[in-house]
């Protein structure tokens, strides 16, 4: 397995290098930026990247930025293949992705949600693990009503799933779900439609849905309320970085765009997408 991954990533790396030389995205010599950028990847980062790209295009009318989704994995694969200039990933880079560079642009928290008719106030770490590993099957065992628990889980490889598993220290094969969903919205709709359900989604998405009247409720974690303020302050324990990913030597246009994404000029956009802007230099370095 290892050797195949190694050879295939070497092969992909070669392709990336070829891609770099054959797609000039800036015209050197002119002082004004021009060219085209392609971003692919995480469906969590994409709406934010689209908004930032619009503003960037207004400031630099000769630049065209194309944002496509397909998941963090696709974003990383596309950057390696040279199909995309910048990948979007809603997780830190893994050990076998050291050939790429991550640029953090915001943070997002992952929170547990239940149906809003569920009287449960809070679940402890052990209770959540027991629910997800099928040891507890009824809400009355954790102090709720006599109702079966419907465990909503995510498909293998999803970034929210990885954040969730890592935070609770569970291996995916030991999780026994009742429904497996893909997108955050799918999870929200499933929980809103099932009174005994529990699931986990991006806090930004959940807050937006709650505001528009969807019948779900975010549960606090370790006595910390699940909201964007607590993700921003770093108090909320289950969170993830939103990254832009590039090859180690991005084009000048790509670098300028990434700097713009990390600047204070776009903090209002980050907040409007219910994410948390990066604040300090140390966060940039991560």
């Amino acid at each position, binding site marked *: *397995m290892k050797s195949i991954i190694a050879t295939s990533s070497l092969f992909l790396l070669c392709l990336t290098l070829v891609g770099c030389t054959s797609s000039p995205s800036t015209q050197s010599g002119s002082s004004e930026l021009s060219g085209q950028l392609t971003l692919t990847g995480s469906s969590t980062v994409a709406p934010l990247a689209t908004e930032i790209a619009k503003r960037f295009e207004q400031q630099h009318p000769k630049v065209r930025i194309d944002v496509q989704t397909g998941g963090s994995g696709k974003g990383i694969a596309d950057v390696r293949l040279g199909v995309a200039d910048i990948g979007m990933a809603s997780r830190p880079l893994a050990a076998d992705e050291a050939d790429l560079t991550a640029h953090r642009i915001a943070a997002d928290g992952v929170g547990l949600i239940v149906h809003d008719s569920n009287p449960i106030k809070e679940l402890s770490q052990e209770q959540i693990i027991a629910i997800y590993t099928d040891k507890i099957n009824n809400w009355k065992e954790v102090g709720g009503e006599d109702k079966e628990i419907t465990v909503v889980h995510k*498909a293998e490889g999803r970034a929210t799933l990885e954040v969730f598993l890592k935070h609770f220290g569970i291996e995916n094969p030991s999780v026994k779900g009742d429904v*497996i969903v893909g997108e955050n919205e799918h999870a929200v709709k*499933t929980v809103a439609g099932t009174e005994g359900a529990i699931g986990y989604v991006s806090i930004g998405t959940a807050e937006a849905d709650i505001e528009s009247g969807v019948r779900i409720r975010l549960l606090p974690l370790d006595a910390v309320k699940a909201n964007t303020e607590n993700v921003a302050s770093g108090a909320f324990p289950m969170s993830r970085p939103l990254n832009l990913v590039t090859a180690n030597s991005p084009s000048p246009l790509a670098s300028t765009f990434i700097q713009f994404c990390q600047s204070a000029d776009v903090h209002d956009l980050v907040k409007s997408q219910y994410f948390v802007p990066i604040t300090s230099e140390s966060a940039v370095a991560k």
Partner: protein
Amino acid sequence: MRSDQSLTIITRALAVISAAIVLLIVLFLLRESTPALRQLGWSRFFTDASWHPLSGQFNLTPMIVATLVTSSGAIVIAAPLGIGSAVFVNFYAPRRLAAWHRRLIELLAGIPSVVFGLWGLVVLAPIIATFGGSGQNLLTATIVLGLMVLPTVALLSDTAIAALPREWIQGAAALGMGRSAIVGWIVLPGARRGIGGGIILALTRALGETMAVLMLAGNIVEMPSSLLSPGRTLNANIALELGYASAGHRSVLFVSGLMLMLVVSVIVLFVSRREGTRRDG
């Protein structure tokens, strides 16, 4: 003569292109899944304990079963409704109503699958949930899938019935057969091949449908014990995981695509063989 020759060339070229596209897709699937097949072999996709590709477990059998259950279930729902509606518009409906009915069925064919999925998720699933669970299970997926392929059965049966020679029906009526007897003994046997073709087309469409099934089937990879248990189809598996998959995981997902192609080709081969023997006999 010359125009005949150029037409021969053109039709040949077009036929080669459409056949080549199928072969190219199969070749692509084979190429992408080779790394996984070479490393794991075929048997592990049937004998592993579960499907956890990131932990080295690759059992596809529950997904093959779920795929077959949902699509054959969809046909069980769609075939009687579709054939019934075709008979209705041809023999029982007043002309104006028949035209409207056809238009409505055509409209049903035009609804995008994601809309079907959303409707199922928000309307149908909570109703099915009264039987217990989340309401996202094989039954919900099968019902919605049945509605999605209904127009294919209905419209093709309609065409097949309408294409029957008028003399057959007039002759039967002249012999004093009632309308129901004409439908049962003349029309349905006569239009058998057309109706069968519609059902096969509907079945392959049901096998290939991804989005609505993904939204409704619950997607748990487990051997289903009843229609009310959740399940994941092969296509939903690809759609759920591909966007997030890297290297080895990706290749395994292509194996599940290859498996779907195999299932479809076995069904198509089986059906065309039966058709062939029937034609000879």
